[in-house]
């Protein structure tokens, strides 16, 4: 069998205008989900290190469940499963944001816990010895330092979550992969289009890396 293969650059370029409408959805699901995930992560990350057993336990359970199950299963559960309980359909976009939120929230909880626990005990002691309450010591001394240390792993999580949104084509939300699939269905140029889809993901994640690296170079994060 003699297959001569030629990459069709014209087809690749022609697909781009059809793919671009997916980018706002990809960004909205990623960053919308991550924003909620960050809030979840702060709450559950701090509960996780609470001195109270009955607060630590549910936080640990949440983290284990949502880190230990695939994000694809989570979104299918939310989109197809939850309506059976709620008695009405869930918007695909909302389901996607919710899935990223609960999934990244579990990972971010661990990032928050690690960040806070990485601050030396002496910092808290110095704050307390000055008469600050435990809450004040946390707010003014521990949290600002922990947040700086959390930014690199948070950037990492953001990149992972952006890529995870590609799975949500299965629930029909019009993100990048979905746009590609729809376009390929009429043109049959899978190779060219998926390469463009990949490059568009790379453009998003690489921009994010660059921003994070600049922040680190300027000494705004880390230490």
């Amino acid at each position, binding site marked *: 069998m003699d297959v001569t293969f030629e990459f069709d650059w014209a087809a690749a370029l022609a697909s781009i205008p059809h793919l671009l409408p997916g980018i706002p959805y990809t960004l909205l699901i990623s960053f919308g989900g991550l924003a909620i995930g960050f809030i979840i992560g702060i709450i559950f990350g701090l509960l996780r290190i609470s001195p109270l057993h009955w607060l630590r336990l549910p936080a640990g359970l949440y983290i284990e469940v949502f880190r230990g199950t695939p994000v694809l299963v989570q979104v299918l559960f939310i989109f197809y499963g939850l309506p059976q309980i709620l008695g009405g359909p869930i918007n695909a976009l909302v389901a996607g944001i919710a899935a990223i939120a609960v999934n990244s929230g579990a990972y971010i909880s661990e990032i928050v816990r690690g960040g806070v626990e990485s601050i*030396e005990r*002496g*910092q808290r*002691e*110095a*704050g*307390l*010895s*000055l*008469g*600050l*309450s435990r809450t*004040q010591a946390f707010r*003014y*001394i521990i949290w*600002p*330092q922990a947040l*700086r240390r959390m930014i690199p792993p948070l950037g990492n999580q953001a990149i992972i979550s952006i890529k995870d949104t590609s799975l949500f084509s299965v629930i029909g939300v019009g993100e990048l992969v979905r746009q590609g699939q729809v376009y390929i269905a009429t043109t049959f140029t899978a190779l060219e289009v998926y390469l463009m889809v990949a490059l568009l993901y790379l453009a998003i994640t690489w921009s994010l890396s660059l921003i994070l690296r600049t922040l680190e170079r300027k000494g705004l994060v880390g*230490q």
Partner: protein
Amino acid sequence: MNHSNSASNKPIVHMDKVNKYFGSLHVLQDIDLEITPGEVVVIIGASGSGKSTLIRCVNGLEEFQNGHIEVDGNELLPNGKSSKALQTIRTEVGMVFQQFNLFPHLSVRDNVTLAPIKVRRLDRGRATEIANKLLERVGISDQADKYPSQLSGGQQQRVALARALAMEPRLMLFDEPTSALDPEMIGEVLDAMRELANEGMTMMIVTHEMGFAREVADRVIYIHGGQIVEQGSPREVFDNPQHERTQNFLSRVLKH
């Protein structure tokens, strides 16, 4: 200097039969101790003898299991059950740590103004005024806008001293303040402490600097195995120690 309404001859620290355990380890054993306002007390002893633990009990950084501790009329209860008095005590007792424990995310000046603003509720202008004065006093005024990591160890420890003094404490605790310093920086920190002692500050100092102890202390306490073995004036303890343990310890540390 002394703004308190308590009579000046009443002890500012009163410890009565204080016991502390780390698990089965009995780290403080029936400690009885009184500190008079204006007194400079140096606590010496081998590492692991309980001397740091002792001063950390005074501001509640360590809990104790039984006994009685009173600091400037505020009673600390065993096992950490005294949050309100504890807060009051900590605003009146300053502490300088071996590892400085400056806040790395804040400028030198903000390190000093944080507690006066958040705890004493001073406005920023007034707090900055106090900070500038204290930083000048410890010789750091030209570094106020830098961050702690840009300073030498000796400078950092002087900032830590200024930070504690900004709360206008009635008592200062020093937990091996020069042990983490390069030898050439020890002198500048001891000078700042000496000056403070001369101004009449009440001080409890854990240190291995025997020359400094001899010169500045009103009283030297030797601790071994969680017990106060011997105490007295520097001359009594250093030149004429009564207990064999004290003699052994001093012969080891004074040799070099």
